[in-house]
């Protein structure tokens, strides 16, 4: 059992949980994820790690209630426990000093897994510009934490209730046009990553995305997470979760993610 020591509501449907998982807290690196089961008969679902504290042996998860299982997790309170947490899984982000700005684009709860990557790129000595986008002001998360590790933060909302009105791509393109962007990291809904990838492809900027597909075991055994990358079948759990965004078949990925939608 993995105890929840802290719970914060980011919005109606998005919560932040701080969970005791000392081994994961010790081993995790930016880019890693965990698989979580809410209860004894719970589903295994992948969640990215937003932060970790080795001293307290805790990891931070940001969960959006989208289906039965994520709703059940969001309903847990501090003092409750997750039945299972396993990880860290996946390959860690390739962090290093880049020859130019690192542009980090986060959409919705995608900002949570993006945060440790922003932090690591900043700590590696890069100039980091972060573009955070959401439908409205209430859905912008972790803005202060991102700001602490970014040279500049651009906020974009669909309705203009925070930052500027417009899509993530508008904010990103402005940065690209005004300074030399060496690498782009995009994490968010599949459709958002798809359009960021199309944008950066136009400017020939290497771009990585982090995919959050359907998974069962998360260790390479089931293949539920497979995506087509550069024409090849790849497993998000062991080959990813990060891939070259210009090579990912996002349309196929979105179609596969609907496989278990209730009709």
């Amino acid at each position, binding site marked *: 059992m993995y105890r929840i020591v802290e719970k914060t509501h980011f919005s109606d449907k998005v919560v932040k949980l701080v969970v005791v998982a000392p081994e994961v807290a010790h081993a995790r690196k930016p880019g890693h994820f965990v698989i979580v089961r809410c209860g004894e008969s719970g589903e295994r679902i992948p969640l990215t790690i937003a932060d970790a504290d080795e001293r307290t042996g805790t990891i931070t998860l940001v969960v959006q209630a989208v289906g039965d299982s994520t709703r059940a997790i969001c309903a847990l309170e501090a003092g409750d426990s997750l039945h299972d947490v396993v990880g860290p899984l996946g390959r860690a982000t390739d962090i290093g000093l880049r020859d130019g700005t690192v542009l980090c684009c986060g959409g919705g709860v995608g900002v949570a897994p993006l945060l440790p990557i922003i932090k690591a790129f900043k700590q590696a000595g890069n100039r980091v510009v972060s573009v955070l986008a959401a439908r409205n002001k209430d859905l912008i998360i972790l803005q202060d934490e991102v700001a602490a590790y970014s040279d500049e933060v651009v906020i974009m909302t669909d309705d203009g209730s925070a930052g500027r009105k417009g899509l993530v791509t508008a904010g990103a393109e402005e940065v690209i046009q005004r300074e030399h962007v060496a690498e782009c990291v995009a994490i968010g809904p599949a459709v958002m990553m798809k359009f960021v990838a199309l944008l950066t492809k136009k400017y020939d900027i290497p771009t990585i995305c982090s995919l959050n597909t359907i998974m069962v075991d998360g*260790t390479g*055994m*089931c293949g539920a997470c497979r995506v087509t990358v550069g024409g090849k079948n790849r497993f998000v759990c062991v080959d990813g979760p990060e891939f070259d965004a210009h090579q990912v078949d996002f349309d196929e990925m979105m179609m596969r993610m609907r496989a278990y939608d209730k009709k």
Partner: protein
Amino acid sequence: MTDRHNDQGRNAAWRQTLRDAMPAKERTAIPRTVMPQLDPAYRITTNEEVNQGLTAEQAVTEATRCLDCPTPTCIEGCPVNIAIPDFIKNIQRGEVLRAAAILKQTSALPAVCGRVCPQERQCESRCIYNKMKKEPVAIGYLERFAADRERAAGPAPVPADIVRNGIRVAVAGSGPAGLSFAGDMAKRGFDVDVFEALHEIGGVLKYGIPEFRLPNSVVDAELDNLRALGVKFHTNTVIGKTLSYDDLLNMGFKGIFVASGAGLPRFMGIPGENLSGVMSSNEYLTRINLMGAGRPGSATPVLKGRRVAVIGGGNTAMDSVRTARRMGAERAMIIYRRGLEEMPARVEEVHHAREEGVEFLTLCNPVRYEGDESGRVCRMYVQRMELGEPDASGRRSPVPIEGAVDEIEVDQVIVSVGVSPNPLIPDNIAGLNVTPRGTVAVDGNHCSSIPTIYAGGDIVRGGATVILAMGDGRQAAASMAEKLLENA
């Protein structure tokens, strides 16, 4: 030699008496026993075990058939060389627990192997009865009988003579290889910790093989026996990820046995294979067996196709197609590119599948899938094949019949064409050598390129059987124990 040992072996007086009691001609006239099984119409409505096990009377009669050959070739057919006539003759004389003890000298999990071993290709294929054009002694049924009776008699007694040596060893993976290694090391006095990536212990015995073929209660009883021996189990721990090799050394482990199993499911790389509704047998079986999908209360979803095609001809394919029938498929099909004769699945599984109404579309190779507007698979095309010359595996290789492509309506496809080794551990332990196939390279003692790390089962073999995995675990335990005690 003690008295206990004197009454064992072919030369024991009681064995001679049994041999003399009935002439060979009379014994060989006894027909092979038929395994009592659930009615096919009933069993596709349930997950209950199909084979019900022999009655005591059946077991004794079947044991009587065994001629107690002076040079028993059945033993050569067994991958771990179980002393087959020894245990069978003990069943015949009514010493069933003794029979079980003989099995356990060689096989850590006889109740499992009695159920899932392909006996018709191993021990039973070498039985003298085959030479007489008669059906072989039902060695597998008898193995299961002895093991089940022992389990029913209560938990296995913990050997009183175990001297704990205080040396810690770690096991990565809790499938058949890991469990047999753990049991043997614990009996040798080592402190054993087994680390499992999933939330349940048992590996393929839990997530892979369905309840109707291997009930979880059988596996759980074995796990309890191991716990009684002092083996500690840790779920949710991925070696190489949660705990690194260095972490294990820092925790005081002196030896590590890697038994992480076969990994990545293979796909064929044909158009439409990533449509929704097309999945690996690992995904399908894991959802149902491990996650309980389809059972009340389980949060895990599973697609329940009406027309289900399972691609492949191995045991996993049979498990998948028979599961699909139980999940309500009206049409459950095996699509296999060779003929029935070449199918690698156990004969019994093929037989059971047929009884359960599974259709066998042999000499058919999938070439493409098509989906509906939502991206769900709705039909497939198969290339009809004919058998040509034998290939490297000795089986006649299928060649396409030009222009013969059939269309089949399907709403679920389960791909069961094998697995590639899981890269997780090799990728995360520097200096651990792998073969060109990606399996962990080991020497004759199951030792890897890192002297403290041993490996066995499918992570070494690529994709083999429970009995071979178990045999690896035992041999690795013997050689690691010897090395660690030498250095102690």
